[in-house]
């Protein structure tokens, strides 16, 4: 009983922006250092791993493309959970987290599209096809841009929070479509080869660098997300102070 009490109060602490900033201050530098070390190790492993017997050296693009694509979907999933946090629990930091995550997700999605295109040219003979996987990820990119525009178009964060949360939740339907597009439709893009019910079909010598790179980019994502959340909290404080100063000036006049 006392244990659950302590753990819920710790969760409640995180809802307090001042406590969140203090926690982020302590964690961010460590996370940044850890992601840098793991990404350097991942790059070393990626370039010392054997070449693919068919794709040759271009298989090394996989170590970027696949983690970027995973993170593009993970980031949207985090935003959808944050949207639930805003609409269901009215968590004070949920909207901040959603707004802060959107530009990071957009960059990871853009990089997944760009690296995929660069990989597609030598392996498929084309930069782009409108197959179900590529198109659904392109739609994800457009949704990120829409959410970025919406969260920055309305000055009052309490009013933009609900709108952004509803749009994000509606758009979440795209995430299972992306995941299963390669099974449901005939795509030029290959089907899943890592997260499958019968286990990965990639050789361990290529799977290890892929997993290390994926871990490194995931830590980088959380470093950037925490930093962006902290900045958003500061931005809202600046807005509050600006209003207070204006009110004070009005009273004096």
């Amino acid at each position: 009983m006392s244990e659950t009490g302590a753990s819920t109060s710790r969760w409640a602490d995180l809802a307090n922006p001042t406590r969140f900033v203090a926690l982020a201050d302590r964690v961010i530098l460590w996370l940044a250092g850890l992601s840098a070390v793991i990404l350097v190790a991942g790059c070393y492993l990626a370039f010392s791993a054997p070449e693919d017997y068919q794709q040759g050296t271009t298989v090394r693009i996989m170590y970027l493309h696949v983690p970027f694509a995973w993170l593009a979907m993970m980031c949207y999933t985090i935003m959808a959970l944050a949207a639930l946090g805003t609409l269901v629990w009215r968590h004070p930091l949920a909207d901040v987290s959603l707004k802060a995550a959107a530009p990071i997700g957009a960059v990871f999605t853009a990089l997944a599209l760009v690296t995929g295109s660069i990989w597609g040219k030598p392996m498929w003979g084309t930069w782009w096809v409108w197959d179900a996987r590529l198109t659904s990820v392109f739609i994800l990119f457009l949704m990120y841009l829409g959410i970025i525009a919406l969260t920055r178009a309305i000055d009052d964060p309490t009013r933009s929070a609900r709108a952004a949360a509803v749009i994000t939740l509606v758009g979440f339907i795209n995430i299972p479509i992306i995941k299963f597009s390669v099974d449901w439709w005939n795509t030029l893009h290959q089907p899943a080869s890592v997260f499958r019910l019968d286990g990965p079909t990639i050789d361990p010598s290529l799977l290890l660098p892929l997993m290390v790179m994926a871990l490194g980019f995931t830590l980088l994502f959380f470093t950037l997300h925490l930093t962006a959340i902290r900045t958003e909290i500061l931005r809202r404080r600046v807005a509050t102070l600006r209003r207070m100063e204006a009110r004070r000036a009005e009273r004096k006049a």
Partner: protein
Amino acid sequence: MSTHDMFVTAAYALSAIGLAGLIAWIIADQQTQRRELAAFEARGVKRRSERAEKANS
């Protein structure tokens, strides 16, 4: 350098540029907000919760 190596180099270079840009933008945004907060503090403008914290300590 074979053409395949050029594709690999392009993928890694563009990813590095994209991520470096994102990191730089996030840090610059943070510095801007910190500077603004410091300017308010220098003018003596404080939020209610900050004044309460000061009074309690």
